């Protein structure tokens, strides 16, 4: 990883989408142990994974990880905290008027 250069790597992954009454969740797991660092971007290839209601869909896919440069990683570490308020649930969208 260079100061300004981005590395790109491919990683096999498993995407799981649960669209059930009991649980609505979706996750990506990298199957080669790839670890995501601040500022990295991930793109899962292939068509949208749509789980019909009542189903859990699990698919093996290929993902591209766009590694952040050293500088970008540092920047994300420094500024990411400003976005932390997103974690708060207030149960309304940000739109002032609908």
């Amino acid at each position: 990883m260079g100061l300004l250069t981005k590395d790109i790597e491919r990683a096999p992954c498993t995407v799981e989408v649960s669209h059930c009454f009991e649980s609505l969740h979706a996750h990506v797991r990298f199957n080669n142990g790839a670890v995501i660092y601040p500022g990295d971007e991930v793109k899962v290839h292939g068509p949208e994974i749509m789980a019909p209601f009542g189903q859990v869909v699990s698919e093996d896919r290929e993902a591209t990880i766009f590694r952040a440069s050293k500088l970008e990683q540092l920047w994300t570490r420094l500024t990411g905290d400003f976005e932390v308020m997103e974690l708060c649930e207030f149960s309304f969208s940000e739109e002032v008027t609908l």
Partner: protein
Amino acid sequence: MNMQTKHTADITNAEESLAVQQAQSKFDSQAATDLAMQNTLLTPRFYTTDFDELDAIDVSPVRADWDQLIAEMEADPNKGHFKKNADWDTVDWDGMEPELKKEFIDFLISSCTAEFSGCVLYKEMKRRGSNADITKLFQLMARDEARHAGFINDALREAGVAVNLGFLTQKKKYTYFRPKFIYYATYLSEKIGYARYITIFRHLEAHPEHRFHPIFKWFEEWCGDEFRHGEAFALLMKTDPKLTAGKNVLWIKFFLTAVYATMYVRDHQRPAFHKALGVDPDWYAHEVFTKTSKLTEQIFPITLDIEHPRWQPTLEALQAANVQIAAGKKAGGFGGKLTELGGSLKAALAFVKLYTIPTVKHRVPESTRLEPAY
């Protein structure tokens, strides 16, 4: 629904619960009609944090309380709660006043996204961590959030809104939060969530004529989950006294101010929703802040002085500034930009005025654990 595997409601341990959720693969004839529904793409954010720091947490100083809380969560008191039963009366979506319907659907979608994002964050922490105490906790919390999201999703389906989970195949960037900021923000978010749900629930208990949708009947047990999650974060913070002392007290004050102010502004953007509930948003905000302040005394050495003469008028000024920003954005052009800039300056000033109100200090109790009492 046809069930070969054990129903998630009938199992008692978290490992099994997640495994069954994953194994369940059922088909619903509704699926075909989903495509015709209004499609809402969920857009949760993705985070990383300092996982080594999380792994280094040692819960020994609070071991007894910790084990008791985890046992309670493993016993899963709400395992059978998130099911529709006879209490789920028919909702007259077509007869609902359009303004109210719009705001209520916005409420459901935002709630669903929030639960869903919580699930994504907790699951990530569970997956990346190696400290057994911590990963267990995050797994249990991910279970609850996914269950809440599923329940809200079902209410949305009834309203003809289908959530789209296709976001996973979009390119997404991972941002970074320091662990302590995650503690402050999620702790407050869970506790204020509890206060918000229970206040609405108690209000509707006294005024059932305002209960325009059955989902509110589920709020009492629902907020029990929020309460327990908050307890867990309180215990996590208790393991390291530095988190609630010194310069960090200024961060705590910042989070309290930001969370209260954001809630106030957002609630005031949804007048039809509050009118239908028969709730004055100013009364509601004050009630929720009072409860949240009382609860957070368990771990934070300060609370905000919400009775201070500057508090309420400044919140109102902040709300007005927010409306001005939106108006500027809508107007566009140079004039719009100026209006927007003016609004942003007013909002920043209002925030500073709120932040500089002296806090109320108090002694944090030896024992952290609380039971839901409202």
